[in-house]
């Protein structure tokens, strides 16, 4: 029972951290990150994503 509770706490902690950083992204990037994660879970077919940093540099995610 204790380990199930610990697992649940770990999962909640991971979800909180994930949402914390997701909320700092603009909505368009959140939407693209969703597609990117769906590709990794096999829901969506492969697409290539690039990230653009503030200096205009473009590289593959």
């Amino acid at each position: 029972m204790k380990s199930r509770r610990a697992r649940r706490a770990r999962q909640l902690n991971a979800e909180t951290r994930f949402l914390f950083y997701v909320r700092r992204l603009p909505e368009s990037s959140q939407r693209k990150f969703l597609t990117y994660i769906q590709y990794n879970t096999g829901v969506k077919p492969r697409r290539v994503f690039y990230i653009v940093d503030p200096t205009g540099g473009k590289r593959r995610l």
Partner: protein
Amino acid sequence: MDFAEWLEQRLKDRKWKPADLASAGSIDSGLLSRILNRSRTAGPDTALAIARGLGERPEIVFRAAGILPPSPPQVADEDELLSIVRELPARTREIVLTMLRALVAPSHYVEATNSEPQTELERELLAEFRELPAEWQEAAIDEVKHLADLRIKIIGEDENEIQTSEESEAA
């Protein structure tokens, strides 16, 4: 300075052993030892317990642990602001503080502790995140943290590049 180093310095200042902090903050001593050995990081709950144990403000510990972004840079007016605030009666200070908190929405406190999705997009992202195996979840957090820290945009692939990758796969 990483979090373990920061924490060791706080313990040294107080002439405390890790066990003293574990007892003061009701933290599992094994967990604390793993944080000090850098074999794991502190999550929001642990950071809060450490703040309680050390008697520090939670945001200081959250920043040291990398859960909150670093403090924003100093502004020119902050000395004047501080001296005005110090002269105000407690009740007025409370009103000013409430108004200031409303101006800087969304609050990092709420963001740091609220794990309930607020929008449809967040709900979808969280649902996909839950589908990932535990070790991939950590990788996903690292990636989204990296994106958020650098404030960079994600863009989709160019049409030409789609064709090129399809052609190379077909070949």
